[in-house]
């Protein structure tokens, strides 16, 4: 691999300043330095496995004979919970057997939630660490300054038995945020505005920075980090600040027990993207993909909605329930439109019940489901039929994503989705009559 000429004096260590992502890749690969183009084998600090790995006919699973670090692994049941099929139930049985055999913790039905939410709630996404999971929205944990990304299911098997996997070090884009979001504008809108302005990240890392970060709630940061999967980002990293430290401390993870990743002064970035959060207005993505499809919600035209969905790792948070409940109180979901709301975890569900949000949603004619990845990927609890149109606050708007390939999936913020459910068509939530 080395391109240094042979027979010379020992090479001087490369002291190039590193980006924050490069810092994590250097530490976990045991390298003094890394640079774009290098291939590094990194030891994962945390391995998150899903029940999908254990499905019958799994392409990704073979019983391990050894587990490298059982204490660093956790298995979360999330994609189909409670089991919608005998196959899914069987996968959970196999997963439990595996966990008990190797002493691995698992999150069973009842304490379950979407893996990225579980990881957040339990303080398992820690600043400066490397977290791997076989779900493409694992970048959600980037909000905690964790280098987290989806890898293949097959790779999770490799991570479990060897402790790590390989990465190509990619260039990094610095994303400078300024200003603060206006009332009624959410992290989803900020993400869509960023995608509209800059398009695909083309497999580059994204490091968020600037004074605008402090003005973003952790909820909005998590939405943004999650959604960066839709612009083909590699690792996504927010800085570790007091907001992150306080959240972790509330979950028993003390300051000083982790080492946040910080870019070296003078680190080389491939590009700088800038977004003034105060300029962001409600946005939607038209069906198919995010890149190239972002328009103002107000410009969507007269789009009748068969279904509106709030949920997923991106927007199944307690804050999303609060927004939905506030808008729905004293109003009704439009006739001919259904609203489905799915909490990201049992904890979110319980908190939403206690706060009265669930009652507000149900009284308005909405449906609240158990926590599951469910409708977001067209599996259960809100699958679309031929010719139907859905506006969703979940993660992805690919053809066929939420069920029938003949259905249309639009993306928007929770506020836009709920306001549109009341109107029965896509609206800018600021148009909702008081």
């Amino acid at each position: 691999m080395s391109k240094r000429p042979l027979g010379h004096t020992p090479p001087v260590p490369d002291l190039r300043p590193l980006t924050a992502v490069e810092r994590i890749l250097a530490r976990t690969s045991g390298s003094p330095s890394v640079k774009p183009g290098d291939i590094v084998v990194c030891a994962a600090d945390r391995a998150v496995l899903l029940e999908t790995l254990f499905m019958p006919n799994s392409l990704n699973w073979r019983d391990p004979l050894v587990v490298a670090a059982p204490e660093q692994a956790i298995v979360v049941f999330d994609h189909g919970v409670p089991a919608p099929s005998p196959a899914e139930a069987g996968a959970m049985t196999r997963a439990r057997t595996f966990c008990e055999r190797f002493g691995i913790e698992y999150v069973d039905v009842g304490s379950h939630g979407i893996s990225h939410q579980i990881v957040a709630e339990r303080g398992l996404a820690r600043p400066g660490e490397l977290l791997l999971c076989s779900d493409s929205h694992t970048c959600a944990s980037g909000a905690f300054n964790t280098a987290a990304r989806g890898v293949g299911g097959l790779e999770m098997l490799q991570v479990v038995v060897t402790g790590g996997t390989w990465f190509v070090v990619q260039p990094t884009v610095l994303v400078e945020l300024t200003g603060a979001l206006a009332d009624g504008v959410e992290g989803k809108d900020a993400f869509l505005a960023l995608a509209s302005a800059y398009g695909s990240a083309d497999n580059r890392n994204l490091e968020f920075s600037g004074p605008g970060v402090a003005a973003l709630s952790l909820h909005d940061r998590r939405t943004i980090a999650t959604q960066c999967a839709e612009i083909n980002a590699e690792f996504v990293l927010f800085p570790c600040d007091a907001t992150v430290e306080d959240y972790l401390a509330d979950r028993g993870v003390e300051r000083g027990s982790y080492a946040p990743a910080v870019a070296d002064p003078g680190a080389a970035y491939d590009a700088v993207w800038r977004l003034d959060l105060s300029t962001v207005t409600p946005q939607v993505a038209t069906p198919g993909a995010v890149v190239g499809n972002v328009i103002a919600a107000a410009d969507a035209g007269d789009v009748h909605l068969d279904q509106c969905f709030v949920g997923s790792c991106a927007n199944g948070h307690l804050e999303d329930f609060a927004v939905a409940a506030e808008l729905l109180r004293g109003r009704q979901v439009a006739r001919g439109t259904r609203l489905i709301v799915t909490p990201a975890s049992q904890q979110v569900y319980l908190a939403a019940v206690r706060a009265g949000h669930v009652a507000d949603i149900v009284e308005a004619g909405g449906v609240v489901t158990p926590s599951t990845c469910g409708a977001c990927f067209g599996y259960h609890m809100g699958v679309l039929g031929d010719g139907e149109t859905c506006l969703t606050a979940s993660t992805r708007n690919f053809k066929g994503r939420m069920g029938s390939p003949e259905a249309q999936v639009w993306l928007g913020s929770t506020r836009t989705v709920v306001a549109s459910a009341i109107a029965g068509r896509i609206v800018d939530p600021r148009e909702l009559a008081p």
Partner: protein
Amino acid sequence: MIVEGRAWCFGDDINSDLLYPQAAFGLPLDEAVRYVFRANRPGWVDEVQPGDIIVGGCNFGMGSARTAGALLRRLGIAACVADSFASLFFRNGVNTGLPVLSCPGISALVAEGDRLRLDLATGIALNLSTGADAEGAALPPELLATLAGGGVLASLERRGLIAPLSSPV
């Protein structure tokens, strides 16, 4: 590593849900492959032949972590070449033993049915039908070794880290 075969062209932004629809989850491999490209190109799985090559545009394989490479290998696809790949698809390709070559500009040089020769070690893609060629990103020795070894499962099995296929799971 050199791969030759007939090209199927698929354009930009071919996503994971087209490659490996949710409806195929949990099915035996030979049934699951029937769903590949069902939404964007129904019937393609009946036309594709072992040894064929898929040519993509930009961001081929974007989206989910679904192990689409294993389905494509089962269909006999010999390699994928694209203007660019989503990194998850690229990783899954290498890890399932499916040769993948990132080659900017390739989609404009290939018409469906052309014969291609891909040299993974040099990154050169040659259109044998037209003589046009393009230089892509050569695969480094580590990844070529993973491909040559048949992917991650085969490697872990050889190292005695996972149960052999024949044993009950």
